[in-house]
């Protein structure tokens, strides 16, 4: 509703680069765990312009505010909103062990 009103208030349609979304990102885990050596943890990338991807009221109003000219303010950023865990091999003094690490793999993106 608030987003609809703001969209109506904008003069020009957006013609920017790719909009905020999920993409692949393989990260080395070599010095952190015994395995895997690397994993695709995904990342969120892309522009946050109205209509915002998975925006909420704060993000919509922040976008509106920065688009009206406050270039020094931090504008909305495309970030993960939800994650999957990842199973890795960790270790302690007793030896290695399988463990599921939370918030490892990005699975949903949005503008915040």
């Amino acid at each position: 509703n608030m987003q609809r009103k703001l969209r109506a208030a904008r003069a020009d349609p957006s013609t920017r680069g790719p909009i905020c979304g999920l993409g692949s990102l393989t990260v080395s885990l070599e010095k952190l765990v015994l395995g895997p050596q690397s994993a695709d943890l995904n990342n969120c990338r892309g522009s946050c312009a109205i209509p915002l991807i998975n925006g909420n009221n704060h993000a919509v109003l922040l976008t509106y505010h920065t688009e009206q000219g406050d270039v020094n303010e931090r504008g909305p950023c495309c970030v993960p909103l939800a994650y999957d865990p990842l199973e890795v091999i960790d270790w302690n003094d007793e030896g290695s062990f399988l463990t599921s690490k939370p918030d490892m793999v990005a699975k949903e993106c949005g503008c915040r």
Partner: protein
Amino acid sequence: SLLQKRRCAFQVTNIRNHGYSAAGNVSGSVQLCENTDCCMAIYRIINGQLEVDTLACDRVKMLCPHETCKAQPPFIDNFVTCTCSTDLCNRNISLSP
């Protein structure tokens, strides 16, 4: 082969390590891998000797480009890990300096 499931040596020393059983049926010291062609070995260097920490089918989506188990540095905290892609290949480990 494409029809036969991978067989890996199985030995788990850390009692916290329940997860490896889910990688495939275990019969004695051999595991029949459910979802992978990779065997895995983790050794630990204790007083200069290699001691088995874990032998099992891979659970964590490791790469296994080699037929035999070749461990390569960096070794974290004296743990030596290797993977390989032939039956029971994780029984023996070779260290490259």
